[in-house]
């Protein structure tokens, strides 16, 4: 079993209370699926270590690619969620600007039905949605540049609100 992480665009789509009624009927709300945007039927996730020491680095690597440094939300779930849904997982090197993160990247191989099952599984068995606040993200990006984990080009984003 491994812990998987998926960054999401809006944390409120993953509130468990809002999903409870759907889950009670063995269904999933539709809104979270907006955060599971597939490309060629594949969805990016990352493997996080048991001690979660690589979690912030992964979220930072994904978030820093956006227009500006902002709060970043993510969900963490056990790989049993994808096993139970019959979802395939493949090791595919990621494309973030932090090369150290890219080896933790995985592709989930999905169909429409499996996508809905994934959303349901995350909401039912995954952890509550979490966030790295922007203030912390700025620190992480700054440190990442100093440590050589992120390219210098991201310095510009540190000054952009």
């Amino acid at each position, binding site marked *: 079993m491994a812990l998987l992480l998926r960054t999401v*665009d*809006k944390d409120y789509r*993953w509130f468990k209370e809002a999903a409870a009624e759907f889950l009670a009927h063995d269904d999933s709300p539709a809104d979270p699926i907006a955060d599971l945007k597939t490309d060629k039927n594949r969805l990016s996730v990352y493997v996080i270590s048991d001690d979660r020491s690589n979690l912030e680095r992964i979220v930072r690597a994904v978030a820093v690619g956006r227009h*500006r440094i*902002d*709060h*970043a*939300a993510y969900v963490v779930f056990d790989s049993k969620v994808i096993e139970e849904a019959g979802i395939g997982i493949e090791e595919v090197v990621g494309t973030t600007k932090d090369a150290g993160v890219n080896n933790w990247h995985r592709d989930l191989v999905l169909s429409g039905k499996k996508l809905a099952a994934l959303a349901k599984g995350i909401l039912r068995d995954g952890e509550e949605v979490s966030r790295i606040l922007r203030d912390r993200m700025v620190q992480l990006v700054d440190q990442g540049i100093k440590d050589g984990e992120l390219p210098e080009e991201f310095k510009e984003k540190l000054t952009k609100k």
Partner: protein
Amino acid sequence: MGLINAATNLPEPVSSTDKGTGTNTSPGSFMARIVLGAVMAATGPEGCLPFGISRFRRWDYGTTAQSSTLADEKVSPALSQEVRELFDDGAREFFQDGMESIFSRSLLKILHDHGQEAVTAIAGYLLSGSAKPDVTSEALRWISDIDDRATFLQRWDLLRHSLHNESARVRDGAILAFANMNDPRASKILAEARTLEPVAELRKLIDQVIRQLEHAR
């Protein structure tokens, strides 16, 4: 040193050297009442800001009275229409954290061009209940990001009011907006909102923001 007025949870003066220049009848508080009046006019009594806005004092953030004119007292119909259209159009967009949008760029332009009148118009529209929660949530986060002392109190009050919105999405936006402002004086407001917050994820988020604000002291 108390940073928050215990009665109102409103920001106290930034520095002691600013004290003594205002009263409850100052132009600043007059403007605040005008803003409140505009909101009430737009929304009815149920939509008004339920707190002591008239207790704002001119020295709180200094430039309110200096930078405003009585032309700001009422929102022009054209601006109200512009704001309404902006939010209606925004409902067709898909928002992503960290990403600008047509909505965010247009919102910032309106705020830049119209200042206090724009905040009044936006508050009126948001409090009318016509706005979609996703759009409102997005708007609050961008509104919190502008660096404009003249509209600080208006924006602060809009956020504070939004912490008690019936939509969890709006409350989420308001909490994150206070994180953006990074002003420790929001801690008490957030702590109070937490006692009423029914969504576990938002209680966790409030705790996280309060911890951030403690480090910002």
